């Protein structure tokens, strides 16, 4: 059995887990070390660290503090990796926590995050999707079920200070062109002591590195020492 390098406990707060962080910053301390060729298991919270619950109210989607996300597992040191190298990541397998076979989808209020169609759906709403092996269906959306294509919405490497500075300048300049835009461009990357270990309440900055396609979600420039992310079993090609 491969070793599980990062474990989570859904009965406890993600804030108590010192192998979780929520910012891409070079000062976040490494929590594990591996060598090229190693394979291992990483457990992850959902991106809100368990804030969204399996119930029939969208209050949690309305009230969430979006400056706390995303809750990520890591960072992991890869021995010998240097800027300019490509990190090759094979996703050999991926799945849900056995004791938690459900997921959520929602729309943020236009007053708290918004979204792609926020002018048409301006209020917080939520749907819960039950997971049954490869398939999912929802008590909130009848008449539809489908097979999933499980994948990490985020996977990446920490930036060095130079790259972080470039992101911050680029994004701060951009925010200045339309500071009140919705969906909100809330904040920038942390110049301050980063979220190391457990996520903290403040200060918070938006985390940038959303993986595209297989590791879906864009803005890969964010991922510092570029890398290949190979999608393995049930982790896709096309793509949060």
């Amino acid at each position, binding site marked *: 059995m491969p070793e599980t390098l990062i474990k989570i406990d859904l009965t406890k707060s993600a804030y108590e887990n010192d192998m979780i962080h929520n910012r891409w910053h070079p000062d976040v301390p490494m929590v594990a070390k591996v060598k090229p060729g190693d394979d291992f298991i990483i457990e992850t919270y959902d991106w809100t660290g368990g804030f969204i619950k399996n119930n029939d109210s969208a209050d949690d989607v309305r009230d969430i503090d979006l400056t706390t996300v995303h809750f990520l597992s890591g960072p992991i040191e890869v021995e010998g990796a240097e800027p300019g*190298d490509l990190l090759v*990541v094979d996703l050999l397998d991926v799945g*849900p926590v056995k004791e938690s076979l459900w997921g959520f989808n929602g729309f943020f209020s236009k007053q708290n995050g918004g979204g792609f169609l926020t002018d048409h759906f301006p209020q917080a709403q939520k749907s819960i999707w039950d997971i049954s092996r490869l398939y999912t269906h929802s008590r909130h959306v009848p*008449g539809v079920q489908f097979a999933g294509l499980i994948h990490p*919405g985020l996977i990446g490497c920490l930036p060095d200070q130079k790259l972080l500075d470039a992101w911050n300048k680029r994004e701060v300049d951009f925010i200045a062109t339309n500071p009140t835009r919705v969906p909100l461009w809330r904040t920038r990357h942390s110049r301050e002591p980063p979220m190391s270990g457990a996520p903290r309440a403040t200060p918070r900055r938006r985390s940038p590195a959303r993986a*595209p396609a297989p590791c879906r979600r864009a803005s890969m420039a964010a991922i510092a020492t570029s890398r290949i992310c190979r999608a393995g079993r049930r982790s896709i090609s096309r793509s949060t």
Partner: protein
Amino acid sequence: MKGAGLSMGDLHFSQGDGEITFCGAIEMAGWLHIKVGLIKDGVAKYGIRNPIFRPSPITPNYKDYLIFEGISVDERGKQHYLDVHVAYRQACLNAIEYLRKFGYSGAQSYSILGVAPVEGHISGVVDIPNACATLYLPTEIFDFDIMPNAAGPTRFIKGGVDLPLSPDK
């Protein structure tokens, strides 16, 4: 940076292209079994600016789609120049309006586009000033036939259930 600092999370059970609902796909807690390797100086050797990917050998096997098109003319009829964001929004809105004819609420339709294995394509950036974006909705995920026919759509979804909504405070 030195040592890479590999981190991951935000697992999705399934997601439509674009993750248009923002909160997001089918978001879940989970685990990954991964293997890491290193290509020294690979960024320069392969001319990499952004990550590159391989597809999984195991994917949902939907083959039939109903394809909705959008062009870069927004909801108010304003023309935009090759704006694929505007075009994809129109494709999504067109699909939502279509699904409503079968009894779904707008929110249910939006949710389906966010979470089902829906594909988004940039189909044309050549016919100035219109970008063309398309949304591929798999027909086989529904319990009923969503294809158009001469008799018109049937309201298979009878209502009575919808996404919970929490008004702003």
